[in-house]
């Protein structure tokens, strides 16, 4: 693949309490505009991996390089805390499984979308307002709800608002942790549709952690399958799902409901 690599993890390892190996020897690259899915059962280390990539948990070994402004890559965990916060702020968006973790429920929808922009230094109310309205429209939240609190929104709307909030500062990388968890099937479908078009339109690289193979097939270009903290299989999404090699992947694919 000739496109620039925006995220590279190599030799990533995270152990809890000296004996629970959550991630070990994880190597992968994420290219600009690419969507990679990470699938695996509960406890396979998906979320821990994501936390290491998102700067929320320090890995015990290995490096996480992300592309910052100007295109150069920096090693996230070698930076000091201030530089790391700054790099993450501008380069990376994170969507939590539960929108309540990613949103501030006490401030309005518009405030939620505009906050990362204010953090990055925009000091013009009219401009913030404009960007917030634009983003609400893009994620299909009615414009008139801009001054309403997210707690008055439905689950699907909250999740879309969270996506708008993470994309508003224009990150190159979007990390999604089970973005469709807790939503009903029809809302899930709409959200996936929206995510797919946004990712294509903006050309951001997305990493989606999910246990739902349907979501993975729909969104991802490539898949990593994790089991007990290791990547046991990697490849193009269709290839992995249609012709799984590892026994675990075969079982996983076989267990998928076909309707």
């Amino acid at each position, binding site marked *: 693949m000739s496109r620039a690599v925006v995220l590279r993890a190599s030799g990533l390892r995270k152990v809890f309490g000296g004996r629970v190996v959550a991630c070990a020897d994880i190597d992968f690259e994420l290219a600009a505009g690419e969507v990679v899915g990470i699938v695996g059962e509960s406890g396979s280390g998906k979320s821990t991996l994501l936390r290491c990539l998102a700067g929320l948990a320090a890995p015990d070994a290995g490096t996480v390089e992300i592309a910052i402004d100007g295109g150069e890559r920096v090693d996230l965990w070698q930076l000091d*805390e*201030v530089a790391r*916060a*700054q790099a993450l702020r501008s380069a990376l968006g994170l969507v939590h499984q539960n929108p309540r973790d990613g949103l*501030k429920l006490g*401030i*309005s929808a*518009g*405030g939620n979308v*505009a*906050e*990362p922009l*204010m*953090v*990055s230094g925009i*000091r*013009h*109310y*009219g*401009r*913030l*307002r404009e960007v917030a309205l634009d983003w609400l429209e893009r994620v299909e939240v009615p414009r008139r709800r*801009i*001054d309403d609190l997210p707690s008055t929104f439905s689950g699907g709307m909250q999740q879309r608002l969270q996506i708008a909030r993470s994309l508003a500062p224009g990150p190159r990388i979007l990390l999604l942790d089970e973005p469709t968890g807790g939503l009903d099937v029809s809302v899930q479908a709409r959200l996936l549709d929206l995510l797919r078009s946004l990712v294509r339109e903006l050309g951001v690289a997305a990493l989606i952690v999910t246990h739902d193979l349907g979501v993975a097939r729909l969104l991802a270009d490539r898949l990593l399958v994790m089991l007990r903290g290791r990547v046991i299989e990697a490849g193009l999404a269709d290839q992995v799902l249609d012709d799984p090699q590892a026994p675990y992947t075969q079982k996983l694919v076989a267990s998928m409901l076909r309707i």
Partner: protein
Amino acid sequence: MIPNDDEVAGGYNFAYLDEQTKRMVRRAILKAVCIPGHQVPFGSREMPLPAGWGTGGLQVTASVIGPDDVLKVIDQGTDAATNAVSIRAFFRRVAGLATTERTREASLIQTRHRIPETPLTEEQILVLQVPQPEPLRQLVPRGAAARRLHAFADYGVMYVKLYEDIARFGRVTLAYDYPVLVNGRYLASPSPIPRFDNPKLDNSRALSLFGAGRERRLYAIPPYTRVASLDFGDHPFEVQRWSVGCALCGSRASYLDEIGSGGPGARMFVCSDTDYCEERREASAPARRAAGGGRP
């Protein structure tokens, strides 16, 4: 006014605090002056005054004051309010200090709620009593998280508060304790002064010290330091304005209080800074002070 001998209590160290404590507070003040706007922890002592009544300001004053200083104490703009009277009496008693009600005559001014209208000089120190030194307190409930934001100079949350106000009410509704950015780096609470007083902190000639006794923090704004009130480019910071002048001295440039005046429903606006008001009235009619002028 210099206290007479029977007013001064024996048995106390000068200015109540022992010398070691004063050194500790002074060290914290030095650090605070070096890092303008940064909150410095200090070992706040029990004072003969309830926490929340100005124990922080009291300790700062006690630590920096000398026998030749002349002290003025302001509460709500006036020297005659309870808190001002008792703190003034306290220092007369334990330090034998001269006190004054005149801003110009004072070398050290301890205040709550107001900064004097009369511009301060390089010779003066302003001590503010601060109930809540953390400007992010209402927005970031955890102290450690707030300190992290200060370390990162990440003040987006404060702008979110301004954004929400403008979205909801069309303007920023903070009337007092309006957050300021000191020297382009630290966000600080100017203590509950009206936002009318915020511009007085910018490039002030006097050293301003802020003490919060209960919260055990102090911070400083050195002389000639940039102090900017937060705002948006298209919603610039504004101070309060009144459609009338002071009913007593006619000033249109000072902060006005609305007070009742006699009859039911009758009210008027007068200067909150009583010394400023009196000085202006004296200047225009010197005879009035002799006749017992002052606040009605």
